[in-house]
C-alpha cells in the first residue's frame, strides 16, 4: 500500500544520476525529497512517472509496478515550468485534464474552482505568456492535480513563490493529504520540508544519504542542539572549554550550540549559572534539517550544485 522505490540506478553516459536509491512513501503522506541541484531528484521523479526507464531497480504503487499503472495515477509538476504560451489558461487546464481522462465539463468546473481557491479567477481567459511567474506556477500546480491523482509528484514547487502564495500552496498540500492523496515534493529549501513533510529522504549525487520520518531523521543524528542566551555575554567564550559542546551559530541575541551524544545539555545550563550569568534563554532541540544535511552531505544544500561539470543541469538527464 505504499509508493516503493527499490534499488534504482540510472546512468547517463559516464554520469551516475542514481545509484541504488530506494525508499518508501506511505499513502496520505507528505514526502520531502531533499538534495542539491543535480543530486538526482528529477531523474527519480521521472522514473516514478515512467517517462524515463531506470537501468535497474523498480518502482511500485500499491503493489503494482509503475509500468502497469495508468498515467492518471500520478500528477506531475515539473521543475521546468511549461505551458502552451499562446493558449488560454482555462483551455490548457481542460486539455491536460482531458489527457488524463477527465470529462471536459468536469475539468472546466474544477479548474474554475481551483482558480477561485487560489484567488486568481480572472486568469481563466488569459494567455499563459501573459502570466507572472507566480501565477504561472499556480496554474502549473492546478494542471498537476486537476485529475485528482493518487500520487502528486512536484519538483521544486515552492521556488519563486512569495510567502502569501507559499501559504496558499501549503494549504492545498495539507488538504490533499487530508483527502488521502500522497504528495512527493523535492526541494532544496529546508524550511519547507520542516514545515510540512511527514517523511523525508536526502539524496546526494545519486546516492540516498538518509530517509525516514522527519522527526526520526533529526533524532538519528544523536546530537542535540541547545539555544542559549546569557545577558551581557554574547561570545560565550567559556563554552569552548566544555567537552563535546561547541558554538555553531552566533546570532545577535542567541547562540546555537551543538551537543555530542552522551553529554547532558543540563550541564551547560549549570555551567552558565555557575559562572554567575543571567540566563535569558535555554532551549533543548533536535538539530535542524539544514544541520543534518551539512553533517551528512558535507556542505550546505545550495553549495556545490555543479558538482560534476559533465552534468550541466539535471534536466540534461
Amino acid at each position, binding site marked *: 500500500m505504499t509508493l516503493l522505490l527499490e534499488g534504482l540506478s540510472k546512468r547517463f553516459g559516464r554520469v551516475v544520476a542514481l545509484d541504488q536509491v530506494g525508499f518508501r512513501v506511505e499513502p496520505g503522506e507528505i514526502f520531502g525529497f531533499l538534495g542539491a541541484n543535480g543530486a538526482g531528484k528529477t531523474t527519480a521523479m521521472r522514473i516514478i512517472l515512467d517517462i524515463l526507464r531506470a537501468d535497474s531497480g523498480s518502482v511500485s504503487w500499491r503493489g503494482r509496478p509503475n509500468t502497469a499503472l495508468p*498515467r492518471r495515477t500520478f500528477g506531475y509538476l515539473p521543475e521546468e515550468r511549461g505551458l*502552451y504560451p499562446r493558449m488560454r489558461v482555462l483551455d490548457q487546464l481542460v486539455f491536460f485534464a482531458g*489527457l488524463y481522462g477527465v470529462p471536459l465539463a468536469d475539468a472546466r468546473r474544477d479548474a474554475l474552482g481551483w482558480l477561485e481557491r487560489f484567488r486568481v479567477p480572472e486568469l481563466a481567459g488569459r494567455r499563459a505568456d501573459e502570466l507572472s511567474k507566480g501565477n504561472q506556477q499556480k496554474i502549473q500546480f492546478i494542471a498537476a492535480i486537476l485529475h485528482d491523482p493518487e500520487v502528486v509528484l512536484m519538483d521544486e514547487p515552492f521556488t519563486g513563490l512569495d510567502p502569501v502564495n507559499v501559504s496558499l500552496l501549503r494549504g492545498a498540500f495539507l488538504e490533499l493529504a487530508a483527502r488521502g492523496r500522497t504528495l512527493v515534493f523535492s526541494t532544496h529549501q529546508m524550511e519547507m520540508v520542516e514545515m510540512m513533510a511527514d517523511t523525508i529522504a536526502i539524496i546526494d549525487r545519486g546516492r540516498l544519504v538518509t530517509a525516514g520520518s522527519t522527526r526520526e531523521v533529526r533524532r538519528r543524528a544523536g546530537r542535540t542542539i541547545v539555544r542559549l542566551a546569557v545577558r551581557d555575554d554574547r561570545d560565550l567564550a567559556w563554552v569552548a572549554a566544555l567537552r563535546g559542546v561547541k558554538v555553531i551559530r552566533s546570532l545577535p541575541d542567541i547562540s546555537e550550540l551543538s551537543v555530542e551524544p552522551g553529554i547532558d545539555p543540563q550541564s551547560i545550563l549549570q555551567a552558565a549559572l555557575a559562572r554567575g550569568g543571567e540566563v535569558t534563554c535555554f532551549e533543548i532541540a533536535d538539530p535542524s534539517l539544514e544541520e543534518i544535511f551539512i553533517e551528512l552531505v558535507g556542505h550546505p544544500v545550495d553549495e556545490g550544485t555543479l558538482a560534476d561539470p559533465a552534468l550541466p543541469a539535471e534536466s540534461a538527464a
Partner: protein
Amino acid sequence: MSHPDGGILPNARLVARREYVEKVRSRAFAVATAILIVVAVSAALVPIGLRALNRGQVTRIGVVSSQPDTTARVISLVSDYLNPVAAGVDPATVRLHYVLTAQANLATGLANVRAGRIGSLLEVSIEPDGGLDFTFHGNDGPTSGTIQKLQVATFGAAVIVYSQNLPHTAGGPGFHQPAFDLQPTDGGSSVAPVDATVTGSRTLLASVMIVLIFITLTIYGMWVATSVASEKASRVMELLISAATPRQLLVGKVVGVGAAGLTQYLAILVPATIVLVLQDPIATALIGRADATDAPLVGLTLPILLAFGAFFILGFLLYAFVYAAAGSLVSRPEDVQQLALPLSFISLAGYFAAISSMATINSSSIAFLSYLPFFSPYVMLSRVMLGHVESWEIVLSLGLLVATIAGSAWFAGRIYGAGVLLYGQRPGLRTFLRVAIRPGGG
C-alpha cells in the same frame, strides 16, 4: 512502451484537436493562407490573361507549294481548322488568330520570314504520287500549340486533297502519309506568339500535382517538426508526456497538423479549381466569346484525383512521422532546420525523379522507384498520370507505403519518447541515429 493507458485514440484525438484549433486560429496561418489563395487564384487566371494578351495577336504563316491550287486549298483547309468559330458566333465577326498567306516561292517566303512580314513558313511538297509532305520553317518547337495544331490541320488537308484527287476509275494510288518536318529559322525577327495552351495538359497537371505534393511534404512536415520542438522549448513537453504516451502525442500531432494543412490546402485549391473549371465562362465574360477556347483541365479524371488524394495523404503521414521524430530531438525550434535538411533531400530526390521521369515514364527503373516508399508518392502519381500502370502495381505501391508508415510511426514513437527529455543535444543526424538505436542511453 506497452502501457495500460491502452488505446491511442481518446488522447490522440484531444491532441489533434488542440493542435488543429491552435494552428488554424493563429494569425500566421490566416495570413499565409490568404496569400496562397491570392497566388493560386492568380495562377489559375494566367491562361485567361494570356488569352487576353493573345487576343490581339495574330500569327502569320506563309504557305508555299509548286501549285497555286494546292496552296490555296491547303490555306483554306488549315485556316478553317486553326481559326475555329464558336457555335452561334457570326463567322464574319471573328478576328482571325492565324492568317495564312500564299507565298510566290520558297525563297520569297523565307525572305519574308527573315524580314518579319510572316512568322513562319509552311512548305508543301507535292510528291510524284500526288501525296503531300509538309515542312515547317519557323522557330516554334514541337511542343508548341501552333505546331500541334498545324500537324493535325495539315494531316486533315492531306486527306481531303487526296480524296478530291482520287481518279474516278478504281485503283488509284494509296494514301500517302504526309510527312511533317520542322526547319528552325534562327535569326528571323519573327516573334513566336506565347502559347497558353501548351500541349499535353496531363504533363502540366502532373507537374502541378507533384509540385503540390512536394510542397505539402516539406512545408507541413516542417510544421510538425517545429510544433514538437516548440513544445520542448516551452517545456510543456514534460507535462505532456507525463499525461499521455509518446505514441498518443505523436499520432495526435501528425493528424492535427495534417488536418490544418488539409484545411489550408482546400482553402487554396477550391477557389483555384473553380477558376480553372470555369475558365471558359470567365474568359468569355472577360474577353469575349470568340477568343475564349481551350479548357486546360482536359485529362483530370476521377481516378487521377483519387490517386492524388491517396498519395497526398499517405505521403504526408510517412514524412510527418519522421519530421516529428526529428523535432523531438532538438531543444529549440530554430534547430529544426538542421535535422530537416537530410529529410528534404530525400523528398527532393523523389520530386526530381518524378519530374525527370516524365520523358521515360515506362522505364523499369522508374517502375522500381514508384514502389519505393518516400519516392512512391511522387513517382507513382507521375506514372498513373502519364504512363501505363497495372492495378497490382498501384496496390503494391500503396501497400508498401502503408507498411512503411506503420514502421516509421513505431520508430518515431521510440525516438520521440526518449528525445523529448533530451536537452542541449547537438542537433544532427548522429544524435538522431544514436537515439534511434538506444533510446534509453544518454
